[in-house]
């Protein structure tokens, strides 16, 4: 079983959900992003999702776009991402990488899988790669024992849901709503329905993401999902802060709140 699977099993035994926290690699700097991800782990985030910054992130809302732009303007490279994965994996927390497909295609799919595995990464979340186009990645992830997390959506048909889940390993990413990343005021009504549809076809853990930003929302999501994925709200802690230390303080506070949230699942 993958390290992500172990984290999910442990959380399940504790009667809670896994908390997944997302941060773009190299935001605000390479060292700053390592400090941020380490702070998140120390404050109770179970799994770190490292997003590779990309020039054209069509699944991301304004917060992640801004953070990605800052990282790219700072000169972060895909190779730096692997160094960050390596450093954060050393904390003991599972580290999964989220990436649009073109950076991987240019690095070389097999070479990236090899280097990600060597850096201690558990696998990839691929927002714009659907299993239909993933032959190379299916082979490379098998070769290097990496997890594959494809996205399922409220608009997925039953047939596509089943097909997508069959190609997943580690966990399934259920997008809670129709839209891009970014915290929302209201909880999604579509999310519980989607999660139960996924559960009907797989025993894999299901993480739910998009729109979750507070401890209360994390608790709500923990009531029906195995994992709660938070990105924009965490990133905003750093974007809105006057300095990196101030940002890290805010990041720790929100991480603590979210960690408490996934431990008090709404029934």
């Amino acid at each position, binding site marked *: 079983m993958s390290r992500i699977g172990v984290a999910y099993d442990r959380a399940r035994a504790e009667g809670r959900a896994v908390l997944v926290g997302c941060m773009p690699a190299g935001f605000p700097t390479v060292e700053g992003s390592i400090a941020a991800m380490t702070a998140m782990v120390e404050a109770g985030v179970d799994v770190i999702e490292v997003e590779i910054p*990309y*020039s*054209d*992130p*069509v*699944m991301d*809302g*304004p917060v992640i*776009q801004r953070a990605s*732009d800052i990282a*790219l303007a700072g000169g972060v*490279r*895909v190779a730096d991402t692997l160094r960050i994965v390596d450093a954060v994996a050393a904390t003991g927390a599972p580290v999964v990488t989220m990436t*649009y*497909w*073109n*950076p*991987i*295609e*240019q*690095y070389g799919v097999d070479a990236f899988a090899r280097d990600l595995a060597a850096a201690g990464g558990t696998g990839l979340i691929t*927002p*714009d*790669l*659907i299993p*239909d*186009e993933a032959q190379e990645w299916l082979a490379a992830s098998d070769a290097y024992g990496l997890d594959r997390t*494809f*996205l*399922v*959506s*409220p*608009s*997925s*048909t039953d047939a*596509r849901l089943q097909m*997508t889940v069959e190609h997943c390993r580690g966990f399934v990413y259920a*997008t809670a709503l*129709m*839209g*891009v990343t970014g915290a929302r005021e209201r909880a999604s009504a579509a999310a519980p329905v989607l999660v139960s549809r996924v559960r009907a076809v797989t025993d894999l853990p299901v993480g739910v993401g998009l729109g979750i930003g507070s401890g209360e929302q994390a608790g709500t999501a923990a009531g029906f999902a195995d994992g709660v994925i938070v990105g924009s709200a965490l990133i905003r802690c750093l974007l809105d802060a006057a300095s990196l230390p101030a940002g890290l303080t805010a990041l720790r506070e929100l991480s603590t709140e979210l960690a408490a949230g996934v431990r008090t699942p709404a029934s």
Partner: protein
Amino acid sequence: MSVDTPAATVRYPDAAGHFGRFGGRFVPEALVAALDELDGAWRTAIGDEAFQTEFAALLRDYAGTPSLLYPARRLSAKIGAQVLLKREDLNHTGAHKVRNVLGQALLTKRMGKRRVIAETGAGQHGVATATAAALFDLECVVYMGEVDTQRQALNVARMRMLGATVVPVTTGSRTLKDAMNEAMRDWVANVDSTHYLIGTAAGPHPFPALVRDFVRGIGDEARQQCLDLVGKLPDAVTACVGGGSNALGVFHAFVDDPSVRLYGFEAGGDGPATGRHAASITGGSSGVLHGTRTYVLQDADGQTVESHSISAGLDYPGVGPEHAWLHDTGRATYRPVNDADAMAAFELLCRTEGIIPAIESSHALAGTVAIAPELAAELGREPVVVVNLSGRGDKDVHTAGEYFGVLDKE
């Protein structure tokens, strides 16, 4: 004239939208259901006589097609080729793009959707979409890079007069590619009510094939018109290539005519060697952008590189996947045309024929000037060349006026 026959369409791309190693779908799962719905609606429409009749009537009565094929005698004498201009510049809204938006607007209506969104660079596709939306009583939102809204203020005004909402995009490089990102984000959030009316033969399947089929009347008409005019097929067909819809539109009817050479002229900007250009095939490499695998201007990490061209309509760092495939198979030849050569051809057409072309189309003219002696040498006679004059230059008067220094100082 019929848009397509099912037999011709199923030939390529394959069922999943692949043109050889290019094309396909690199999109969030959330969009797959809508793309499948669109694919189904399009395939049904192709075989549906009622749809074809309605589309043909719109093209004839509203858009003003078939467009003329005009023997440009003074230009021909200057460049040593018999040039036949396919006058898409005379269509309603001033370019070939009206064919695509009318076809997609009809499909939108068939799918029961009430809202269309579009991306636009120079504003031509935005104006065309706003036009079709007005005609079909659809809500219309156009995403346009903030930089472009300033460069093309008149087109912003046109879209608003037609009832569209123009959203300036302030992310990334604030140009066409970012407008396309923002339109994709809107679509992911509103896909139940909304059709994304993509303006070129790019994006995820079925858009590249669907757009090609809606504009292929250009080539179907030109092929017959050429036979009627000169009694034989042309030796070459030329077009400019940004995303590539006008080129595919004119190429498609000739792909199975081995004697007809196909030339696509990309925007060479300051010259491909300078890095300041928009020639994705000449100066790019295979990658994934905006939902499809094609030639992309990118760095070693796969980050999209900004394109540059004097022509806003060609200023895009990718190209439709069918062109990538036609390049790989060798069926079509792609070459860059620098800004300066395009502008020289712009002036040449103004002065020889009394036609002010779009700067986009001027790239096709400049490329034709360049290949005319090569073709003549190869054939041992004057070549016959169909040039797709894809749009008129009204929108470019300010840019060209500044370039040639013919604007009075304030």
